[in-house]
């Protein structure tokens, strides 16, 4: 076997490596296309790059939380509703009580984490599938947004420092993307180099074995639920800061996109498997494809077709990889 093939094989075996190869391949094709046809295919235009880098963090941040929870063996379908509910709460605090923006941010994260913990408590106390509990929570909090705020969009205009730290940019690099990278590093360290991460893998992989060896599965899962809710709220505030406005239906569909990003990134729906690299690349890949189709002037429904095929393709690849690892 020649060397590049062996090298690609090695990369494919690290967690998230399979998606990395696909991602790099697509980037190479896109960059080559952008260099060859700069007038027709504006992939490398600065405007395009900055729009893409701004779009990825919304889904990326939310997917990190959802991914941790999936690794711990549970789902959260309510993150899209939490994303909107928590950011509207922050905006209301800013507008009606004129609290500083960072207080609003902390309040939003606390609300998101609390909703996550509540989902977790109901799931664990009644031994229900979290899929059902959070499906209910998704509708419940979506309704609560309309009940408490109404259907009008709301302004979110934080002070200039907050705006710069969370909504500004350094050259082409938006602040929110830097935050996403920072969170990815933090979550990677937690997952791979801290006890908590190891316990998440254990609880998600085999709850009974984890319990028999002295890990408290309920505690680990509650932390993961809190992370999912808190990250959803954070993502909501990031987006609100970017556009200085929140629409009450803005988060709809994000929960499924987040799960899609995780599945594309190699996370198992059964829990116990996954990597931060995979989650990040899953989210980035969805937006790369979206961007690609926009640049090629394909109608919007092509995105659904491509992402849909990508999810199933990724799931098949992961299954094949898991089987060959067992041999």
């Amino acid at each position, binding site marked *: 076997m020649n060397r590049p093939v062996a090298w690609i094989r090695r990369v494919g075996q690290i967690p998230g490596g399979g998606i990395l190869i696909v991602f790099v391949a697509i980037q190479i094709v896109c960059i080559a296309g952008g260099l060859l046809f700069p007038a027709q295919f504006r992939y490398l235009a600065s405007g395009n790059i900055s729009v893409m880098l701004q779009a990825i963090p919304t889904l990326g941040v939310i997917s990190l939380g959802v991914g941790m929870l999936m690794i711990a063996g549970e789902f959260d379908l309510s993150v899209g509703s939490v994303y909107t509910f928590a950011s509207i709460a922050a905006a209301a605090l800013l507008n009606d009580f004129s609290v500083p923006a960072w207080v609003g941010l902390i309040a939003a994260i606390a609300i998101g984490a609390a909703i996550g913990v509540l989902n977790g408590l109901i799931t664990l106390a009644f031994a229900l599938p979290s899929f059902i509990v959070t499906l209910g929570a998704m509708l419940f909090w979506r309704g609560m947004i309309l009940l408490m705020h109404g259907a009008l969009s709301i302004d979110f205009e934080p002070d200039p420092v907050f705006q710069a730290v969370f909504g500004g940019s350094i050259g082409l690099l938006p602040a929110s993307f830097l935050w996403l990278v920072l969170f990815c590093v933090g979550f990677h360290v937690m997952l791979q180099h801290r*006890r908590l991460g190891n316990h998440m893998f254990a609880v998600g992989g085999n709850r009974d*074995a*984890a319990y028999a060896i002295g890990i408290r599965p309920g505690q680990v899962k509650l932390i993961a639920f809190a992370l999912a809710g808190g990250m959803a709220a954070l993502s909501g505030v990031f987006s609100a800061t970017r556009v200085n406005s929140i629409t009450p239906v803005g988060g709809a569909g994000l929960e499924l996109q987040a799960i899609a990003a995780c599945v594309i990134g190699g996370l198992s729906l059964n829990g116990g498997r996954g990597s931060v690299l995979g989650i990040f690349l899953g989210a980035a890949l969805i937006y790369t494809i979206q961007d690609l189709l926009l640049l090629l002037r394909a109608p919007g429904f092509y995105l659904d077709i491509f992402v849909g095929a990508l999810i199933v393709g990724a799931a098949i690849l992961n299954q094949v990889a898991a089987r060959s*690892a067992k041999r």
Partner: protein
Amino acid sequence: MTSPMYEIRDASKRFGGVLALDGLDFHLGAGEVVGLLGDNGAGKSTLIKMMSGIVPPDAGQVFVDGGEVQVRSRRDSQKIGIETIYQDTALVDSMSIVRNIFMGRELVGKRGFLDHRRMREVAIDVLRTTVHISGIDDPDKEVGALSGGQKQAVAIARAVYFKRRILLLDEPTSALSVRETENLLGYIKRLRDEGVSSVLVTHNLYHAYQVCDRFVVMSHGRKVFDVAKADTSIDELTRHVVLT
């Protein structure tokens, strides 16, 4: 009379309509290997799970070195110094061998970061020196990729590394080859010489007879026979297991 190192008095456990343990008394001395015998459904596994804290008793008391202790979780039994090798091995298939061995008891450095290198070294060492299972060349291999015997070896390696006072083995030889079984039985003897007590649950009376100092036969959640090795024979034990 001096009190035994570990003692359970009048333990009961009900699962729905089934009385798995019915006022059971059981004790274990320091450096003693007890064979726990009995037909399926006699309550052996329930007793082991109760001792390791994952099945809390409905009634009964536990004494360690003569003092009463509460054992209601795995952490409680860990404090007493109990390690268990379960019948269903209690491993996570999607995790590596190293991570399984140190699951829940990860080695960490000063700032709480996992010490992957040291865990890897210890895992290689334990796997090589104690269980002699062939075919485990890479401690980073996923446990799901191992054979039944290899999985059992990982479970044994884990218990052996963390052993302190009492080792509970629930059908540990069911997935092992003859040579692997001999190694394990030899290891139980060596641990006894170091002062570690063991409770060995098995259907194989020859294995039990080879290493145990005392035998307890259970039936329908009760102790029906309790005899030192010197006072019995395989034939007599067989009769008690089959007839009660």
